[in-house]
C-alpha cells in the first residue's frame, strides 16, 4: 500500500478491481463503508463474479478474468479523450514529457526487440533520449511525437469502449458509467483509491495489470494524496515483512538485490547500481545503496566482513538466472535436481499450480522438512488419502520431518501490515506439547551445521562458521535481539571529520534512521528500511498512542511505519509545484518557505525546494514513470494479452498466446488446455469464511463454510443439467476435482468477441486435513505458468470443463 487502511476513509471513490476487499479483508474494508457513510464516497466493483464486495457497491460491472489491462488502458484513453486528467500533476510529476529514444516501437502485440526463441526482449530501445548534459530530453508541451505522453496516446488508441466490450465482455454502457465516475477524480479536490490484490497479481501479466492502474492514478493525480494511492491489500499477516526482509530468491533485506554471475566483485556489483540522477537536482535516493549494502553485510558477518574482503560480498550466492522462484525450483525438483526442501509454515501441495506436478516433484526429494503449527497436506503428500490424495506411499522414498512450531498466540515479535506498519505483539501462552518457536529451530539447525563444519570442514564453511551470532542465548535468540539488528547499530564510533572531538555516532548505540548508515563498515543494519523501529528510545513498534492530529487517519505514533515512520508514500506529490496542497482539505505536507512540514513525515528531503526536486525520490528521474523504460520484462507500457488458457483468441494479436515474455517450461506448455476440450473460463479465489488452508483446521470456520464447492451461472447449470447443491466434476488438462455446485445469479455468462463465455468460480480452502470436510483445491487444475516479471502463477484465469457427477464416492 502507498497509503494505509485508515487513510481510505479520506477517499471519494473506491475502485475494487483485481480484489475482493470485503471478503478477504473485512476489517480493512470498514474504512470503505466509513468513507461511504461519512463523506458519501462511491464504491465501484469490477469482477467476473458479483462478490460480497459488490453486494455493497454503488456500481458493479462484470469483466472476463485476465482482461484488466484492456479495461484500464481504455479508461486512460477515455480520460485523455475527454480531457479528464490532472494536467499540472502529469506534466510535473510523471515522465510524460520525457522523450524516448529513436527506434522504440510497438506492433502486432509486440514491442521492439522481441526474440521468440528466448521468449524475451532486447530492451535496449526502451530508453530515454539523453542530452549532452547526460540528462533526459523533455518537452514540457507534451507535443513531441516521441515524448512519453504522445507514445502513450498512440499505444492506447486501440482500446475504444467497443474494443473493451469485445475483449472484456463488459457491457459498453456500464463501462462508460465507470469511466465517467473515475474521470471525475481528475479534479484536484477529488481522489480515488485503488484496492487490489491477487485478482491482479495472479496472472501471466500481473505486474502490468497493476502498472495500468498506477498509470491511471498518476494521470488523475491521485498518487501521494490522502484517500488516493495504489493499495495492495496483500495476503498474509507478514507477507509485506517477508518481502521487505527479502526472503526471496534474488533479494537482500530492504529491496537490495543479490549479485549475478556477471557481477564478479563488489565494485562491479555497485557499478550497475549507481543510480545517477536523470534530471537536474533529483535526489535519486538509491545513491545511498552502498551504505545499506555494506551495513547489511556487517549485520550478516560482523567482524568477519571487512573492507579488505569487500565486506564478504563474495559469501553471498550469485544468481545465474533471474531467480530460483518456486516455479523454477519445482521444475528442477521434477527433474530430480533438488534433494532437500524446507517448508516453514507453507503448504505448497495446495498452494502451487498443477498439484500433480507438485506431488511428483516432492516425491523425487531425498528429504522434506515441514515446520508448521498445523498438520499440513504437504507434510502428508506421501499419504494415501484415496481420491483426495491418490498416491502410493511405498513408491515415495522421501524422508519427511514434521516439526511442530508455535503459533501467533505463543509468539513475540513484529509483523508488517499492508500499510507498512510494523506492529509488535506479545505471547499469551506456551506452545502446545513439544512445539517450539521457529527461532529456536533455526538457531538449533545453524548451531548443528556450524559445529559439523568446524569439526569436519566441508564445502566453503566460511559464511556459516563466521555468521554473526551475537545472541544472549545462541541456542534461542530473542525477538528483541533481531529487531535491534534490523534497526541497525553503530559498530565503531564515528566522529565529525572536521572536529574529531565531536562524536556523531557512538559505538554500540542503535541508529535513529537509515540516514546515519555508513558504507565504511562503521554501522551494521539488517534491513535499512526498518531503521528507526528500535532506537535508543526503545521499541517504536510497540507504541500504542492512538492520537491522530488533524484526523488524517495517519496515527503517526501508533507502532512504526517504514520508511522513517512515513504513513503515506510519495506524500510530497500531495502538494503542487509551489508546495501548496492540491486540495487544502487534504493537506498532508506543505512547503512553509524553508522546509516541508505537516501531518506526515515528508517523503523528500525536508529542505528540498518544491520547484527543484521531484516527489518520486527513489527514481533517478524524480518523477513517476508512465513509461517503465527497460525495467519491466514485458514492455514499457502494458498491453492486452490473453491468459495462457483463454476461451477466446487475442483480438489485437491473434498469433500471440498468453504474455509473450512470460517464461513457461516445455512440459508445462504441452500441459496447457484449449477451449475446444475445456470451454469454460475458470478463476480461483478465497471466501470470507476462510483463510487459505489454515481455517479448515478451525472448528467454527469449518462450520461457517464446511464443504468444497464451485460457483456456476444458472445458464450453465441449465445447459449442463446441474442441480443446485449437486455434485459436479471439474477438469482441466492437468487434473480434475469433485465439488458441490453453487448455482447462482451472481455469475453470468459474458459475451466476448461475439462468443458466450461461461465463468466457473473455484474457491481454494479445502484439503484432506483439518476440521472441514475433505475436498480439493483449484491447484489440481491450474496451469504452471507465472507472471513475466515476478513469476506469480496464473491462478486467476484458466480453462476447465464441468460435468454433473455422483461425487468422489463413486470415482
Amino acid at each position, binding site marked *: 500500500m502507498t497509503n494505509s487502511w485508515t487513510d481510505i476513509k479520506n477517499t471519494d471513490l473506491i475502485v475494487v478491481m483485481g480484489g475482493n476487499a*470485503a471478503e478477504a479483508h*473485512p476489517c480493512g*474494508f470498514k474504512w470503505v463503508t466509513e468513507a461511504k*457513510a461519512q463523506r458519501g464516497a462511491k464504491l465501484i466493483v469490477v469482477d467476473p463474479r458479483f462478490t*460480497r464486495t459488490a453486494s*455493497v457497491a454503488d456500481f458493479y460491472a462484470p469483466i472476463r478474468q485476465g482482461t484488466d489491462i484492456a479495461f484500464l488502458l481504455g479508461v486512460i484513453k477515455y480520460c485523455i479523450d475527454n480531457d479528464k486528467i490532472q494536467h499540472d500533476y502529469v506534466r510535473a510529476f510523471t515522465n510524460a514529457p520525457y522523450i524516448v529514444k529513436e527506434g522504440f516501437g510497438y506492433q502486432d502485440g509486440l514491442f521492439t526487440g522481441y526474440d521468440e526463441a528466448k521468449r524475451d526482449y532486447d530492451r535496449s530501445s526502451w530508453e530515454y533520449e539523453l542530452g549532452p548534459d547526460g540528462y533526459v530530453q523533455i518537452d514540457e508541451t507534451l507535443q513531441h511525437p516521441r515524448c512519453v505522453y504522445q507514445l502513450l496516446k498512440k499505444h492506447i488508441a486501440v482500446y475504444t469502449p467497443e474494443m473493451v466490450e469485445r475483449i472484456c465482455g463488459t457491457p459498453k454502457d456500464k463501462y462508460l458509467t465507470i469511466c465517467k465516475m473515475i474521470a471525475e477524480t481528475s479534479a484536484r479536490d477529488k481522489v480515488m483509491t485503488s484496492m487490489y490484490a491477487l485478482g491482479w497479481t495472479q496472472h501471466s501479466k500481473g505486474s502490468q495489470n497493476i502498472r495500468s492502474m498506477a498509470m491511471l492514478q498518476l494521470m488523475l493525480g491521485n498518487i501521494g494524496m490522502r484517500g488516493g494511492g495504489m493499495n495492495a491489500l496483500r495476503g498474509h499477516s507478514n507477507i509485506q515483512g517477508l518481502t521487505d526482509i527479502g526472503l526471496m530468491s534474488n533479494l537482500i533485506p530492504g529491496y537490495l538485490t543479490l549479485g549475478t554471475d556477471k557481477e564478479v566483485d563488489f565494485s562491479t556489483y555497485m557499478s550497475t547500481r549507481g543510480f545517477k540522477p536523470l534530471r537536474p537536482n533529483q535526489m535519486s535516493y538509491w545513491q545511498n545503496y552502498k551504505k545499506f549494502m555494506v551495513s547489511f553485510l556487517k549485520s550478516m558477518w560482523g567482524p568477519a566482513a571487512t573492507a579488505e574482503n569487500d565486506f564478504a560480498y563474495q559469501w553471498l550466492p550469485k544468481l545465474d538466472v533471474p531467480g530460483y522462484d518456486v516455479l523454477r525450483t519445482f521444475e528442477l525438483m521434477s527433474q530430480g535436481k533438488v534433494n532437500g526442501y524446507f517448508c516453514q509454515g507453507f503448504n505448497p501441495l495446495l498452494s502451487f499450480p498443477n498439484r500433480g506436478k507438485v506431488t511428483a516433484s516432492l516425491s523425487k526429494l531425498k528429504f522434506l522438512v515441514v515446520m508448521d503449527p498445523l498438520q499440513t497436506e504437504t507434510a502428508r503428500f506421501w499419504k494415501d488419502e484415496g481420491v483426495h490424495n491418490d498416491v502410493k506411499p511405498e513408491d515415495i522414498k522421501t524422508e519427511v520431518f514434521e516439526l511442530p512450531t508455535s503459533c501467533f498466540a505463543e509468539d513475540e515479535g513484529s509483523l508488517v501490515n499492508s500499510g507498512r506498519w510494523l506492529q509488535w505483539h506479545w505471547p499469551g501462552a506456551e506452545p502446545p506439547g513439544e512445539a517450539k518457536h521457529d527461532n529456536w529451530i533455526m538457531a538449533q539447525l545453524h548451531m548443528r551445521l556450524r559445529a559439523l563444519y568446524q569439526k569436519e570442514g566441508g564445502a566453503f564453511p566460511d559464511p556459516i562458521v563466521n555468521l554473526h551470532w551475537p545472541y544472549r542465548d545462541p541456542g534461542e535468540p530473542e525477538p528483541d535481539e533481531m529487531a535491534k539488528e534490523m534497526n541497525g547499530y553503530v559498530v565503531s564510533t564515528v566522529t565529525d571529520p572536521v572536529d574529531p572531538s565531536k562524536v556523531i555516532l557512538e559505538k554500540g548505540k542503535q541508529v535513529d534512521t537509515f540516514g546515519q548508515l555508513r558504507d565504511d563498515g562503521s554501522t551494521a543494519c539488517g534491513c535499512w528500511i526498518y531503521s528507526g523501529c528500535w532506537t535508543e528510545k526503545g521499541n517504536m513498534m510497540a507504541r500504542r498512542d492512538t492520537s491522530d492530529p488533524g484526523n488524517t487517519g495517519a496515527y503517526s505514533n501508533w507502532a512504526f511505519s517504514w520508511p522513517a515512520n512515513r504513513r503515506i508514500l510519495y506524500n510530497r506529490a500531495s502538494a503542487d509545484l509551489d508546495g501548496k496542497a492540491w486540495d487544502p482539505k487534504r493537506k498532508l505536507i506543505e512547503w512553509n518557505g524553508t522546509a516541508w512540514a505537516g501531518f506526515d513525515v515528508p517523503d523528500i528531503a525536508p529542505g528540498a525546494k518544491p520547484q527543484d526536486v521531484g516527489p518520486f525520490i527513489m527514481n533517478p528521474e524524480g518523477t513517476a514513470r508512465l513509461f517503465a523504460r527497460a525495467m519491466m520484462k514485458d514492455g514499457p507500457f502494458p498491453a492486452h494479452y490473453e491468459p495462457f488458457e483463454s476461451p477466446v483468441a487475442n483480438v489485437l494479436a491473434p498469433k500471440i498466446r498468453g504474455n509473450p515474455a512470460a517464461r513457461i517450461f516445455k512440459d508445462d506448455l504441452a500441459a496447457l488446455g484449449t477451449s475446444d476440450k475445456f470451454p469454460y473460463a475458470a478463476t480461483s479465489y478465497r471466501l470470507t469464511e476462510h483463510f487459505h488452508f489454515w481455517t479448515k483446521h478451525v472448528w*467454527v470456520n469449518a462450520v461457517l463454510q464446511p464443504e468444497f464447492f464451485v460457483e456456476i451461472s444458472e445458464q450453465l447449470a441449465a445447459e449442463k443439467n446441474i442441480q443446485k447443491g449437486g455434485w459436479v466434476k471439474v477438469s482441466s488438462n492437468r487434473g480434475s476435482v469433485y465439488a458441490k455446485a453453487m448455482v447462482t445469479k*451472481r455469475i453470468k455468462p459474458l459475451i466476448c468477441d461475439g462468443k458466450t463465455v461461461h465463468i466457473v468460480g473455484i474457491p481454494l480452502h479445502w484439503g484432506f486435513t483439518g476440521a472441514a470436510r475433505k475436498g480439493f483445491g483449484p491447484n489440481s487444475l491450474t496451469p504452471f505458468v507465472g507472471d513475466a516479471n515476478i513469476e506469480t502463477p496464473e491462478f486467476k484465469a484458466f480453462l476447465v470443463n464441468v460435468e454433473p457427477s455422483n461425487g468422489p464416492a463413486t470415482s
Partner: protein
Amino acid sequence: MGLQSQDFARISATNMRPPDVRHDFEVAKLIDVSKCIGCKACQSACLEWNNLREEVGFNTGSYDNPHDLTPNSWTLMRFTEWENPQSGNLEWLIRKDGCMHCADPGCLKACPSPGAIVQYNNGIVDFVSENCIGCGYCVKGCPFNIPRISQTDHKAYKCTLCSDRVSVGQAPACAKACPTGAITFGTKQAQLTFAQTRVADLKSRGFQNAGIYDPPGVGGTHVMYVLHHADQPQLYAGLPNNPRISQVVELWKGLTKYAGMAAIGFAAAFAFVHGIVARRNDVSRAEDREAEHVIDEEAARGRQA
C-alpha cells in the same frame, strides 16, 4: 423472587406483574443490511462468546451455513439473490437473522413456566434455562420463528443479546465484531436517531423505499434493521411484513384460559351444591322387595324357556 425482580418488565406465566420500578435505559441492536457484507463474523463471534459449537455440515448450494438457527447457533446470515425489477440490477440481500427482542414478546406470552422467559427493563428478552420445561410453546408464540429446543437437554435457546456483556456495560459480541459496522449497539433512542441518518444516505443513493424495521405489531423490537427496501421486508429471506403474535395464540393464552377455568369451576360448584340440596336418589325398601318378585318371575320365565 428477591431484589432483582425489580429489574424485570415482564415474567412468563405469572399473574403478578413485576414492580418494574427501576428505570433502565432501553437498549437496541441496529442491523444495517445495506452495510452488511455477509462475512458471518457475527455468527463466529456468537459461537465463540457463548462457548457454543455446531456440527460441521454440508454444502447444499447456498451460503447459508448452518442451514437454519439451532439450539447452538443463535444467529445466522440469510442470503437472497434478488433481481430488482426497477433497476434491473442484481441485489444480494443478506440479513442477519436472530431474536428480535420484541417489546411484546410472543414467546413470553406463550410460556407456561413461571420465570422461564423474562424481559428486563432494558428490553432484553431472556430465556432462564433453569425454569424452562422444554414444552416448545415459545416456538408457537414467536412471530419470527426464532426459539429452538435442544434435543439434548430439552430446553429452549435463542440470542440473549449477550445479557452477560450488557450487564457489565459492554456491547453484544456480534455488534463488537462486525467489521463494517453494519451491527451497532446503543440505547434504543440513539439507535433510532442514527438509523435515520442511514436511511437518508440510502435514499441519496437511489433507494427510495429505504427505511427502518421496528415493527409496531410487536410493540417495536430491540433488534432493528435498516433496509434498502423497507416496503418489502419479505424480500429479505421472508422477514415478516407486519409481525404480530398469532391470533390463535392470543385466544389460547387469553379467553380459553379464563373461560375454561370458569366452566370447570362452575360445574364443580353446581355438583357440590346439588349434592347438598337435592333429594337423595336412593333405593327404597319397597324397591328391594319388588326386585325379589321381578327376579322370581323372570327366573321362572327363564326356566320355562
